[in-house]
């Protein structure tokens, strides 16, 4: 059986039923095909709602050199999953949660930033976070997002020195997401002098 051509034919996101339909085989055979494709490294399993299994099939085996990029990192560490617009790898050093939070904010994408709130629970080195955030001119945005994360999830305590450094930091513009403002969470916005992009209802995604 030519598994490479089968993987090429099935390229994209599939379920067992869609594989069975595409190849004109029954469900049980489709499961066997997935098993064989996975053994060859053509399949990655992702879970949809209600834990339904979906298979990301590609004829090219994914490059596993280096470390996972932002989107893979968020999907591993956050409850809110994101569809990666491209595959990303980081070389030379293991990415830290401090670095990833800043990267997420710099994307300016609402869902990516919402997903990155979970990383505040992983941060151990507040000084490093402060340094990276100030260097990338997103210090106050990070501070505001930390306070927002505190509302909905359990996070580690930010030390006073970091908080003060972030409060006094310079930023490029006040909007975390372009043209997105909320009337909720006014106290946080006032303190950090930035515009938060999501309201309280958006944060409920962490409770689901």
């Amino acid at each position, binding site marked *: 059986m030519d598994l490479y051509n089968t993987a090429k034919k099935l*390229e994209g996101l599939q379920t067992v039923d869609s594989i069975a339909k595409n190849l004109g085989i029954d469900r049980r055979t489709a499961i066997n095909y997935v098993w064989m494709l996975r053994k060859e490294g053509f399949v990655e399993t992702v879970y949809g709602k209600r834990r339904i299994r979906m298979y990301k099939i590609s004829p*090219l085996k994914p490059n596993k050199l280096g470390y996972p*990029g932002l989107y893979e990192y968020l999907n591993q560490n956050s409850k809110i999953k994101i569809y990666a617009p491209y*595959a990303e790898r980081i*070389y030379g050093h293991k990415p830290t949660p401090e670095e990833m939070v800043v990267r997420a904010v710099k994307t300016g994408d609402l869902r990516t930033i919402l997903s990155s709130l979970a990383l505040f629970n992983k941060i151990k080195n507040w000084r490093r976070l402060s340094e990276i955030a100030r260097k990338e001119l997103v210090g106050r945005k990070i501070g505001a997002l930390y306070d927002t994360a505190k509302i909905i999830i359990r996070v580690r305590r930010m030390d006073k020195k970091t908080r003060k450094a972030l409060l006094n930091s310079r930023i490029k513009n006040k909007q975390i997401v372009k043209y997105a403002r909320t009337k909720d969470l006014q106290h946080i916005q006032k303190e950090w002098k930035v515009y938060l992009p999501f309201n309280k209802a958006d944060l409920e995604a962490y409770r689901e």
Partner: protein
Amino acid sequence: MINLQEQIGLFKIIGSQLKNKVECIAIGGSAMMFYGAKNATKDVDMVFSKKEDLEDVKNILYKSGFDERNNIKGIFREDETAGKPTMMDGKDTRFDLFLNEVIGFQIHKDTIERIKEVHDFGNFTVKTASPEDILMMKACTERERDRDDAAELVRKFNIDWNAVINESSKQTKIGIAAFPVLLYDFLTELRENFNVDIPKNITKELLLIAEKRLEELKKQDKLIKVTKYK
């Protein structure tokens, strides 16, 4: 020739020595190695959008033992400067650094949107061009080994032929007017000599685009003759 591990090693050296963030797009064999579609490449081709970025990388390569090659011949006799890269020769490999265009193929917003992978080497970010773009860029060259690579690309990837058609049409306006003709020749050769499955309606459509654009240029009296160096 260098393999993926060695290429990554070189990119890490560049990334560690750059003072500012630099972005580029890897094309050709270099990108194919990232996709796992090729094991080794002779030259590492990269496209930059800023002249300063290209110069920064060039200087680092020079300090790492690469020498700039002079007297590079252009692709077209009538336009010596078109798409001429900066070539940096090393012991086992060569870096071809392009600025915004690759032998007449213009890099623009859509090319960047089609990017499939991003590789981060500290201050050096390497994005990989989509298989469709790599295929089209290969159509502009006359090298035999590019045909092998292109055949491999069509065999290994599900090429989005609609993207190829749209891009060809765009390139007639921003790049080489005769681009669809070059691509038509290239794809026909691939189909006939390499036995690659390329839909016939695609090549037909390419000819139509070329005829339409050449007719427009003829009416405007802007048609010029270009000859490729052999």
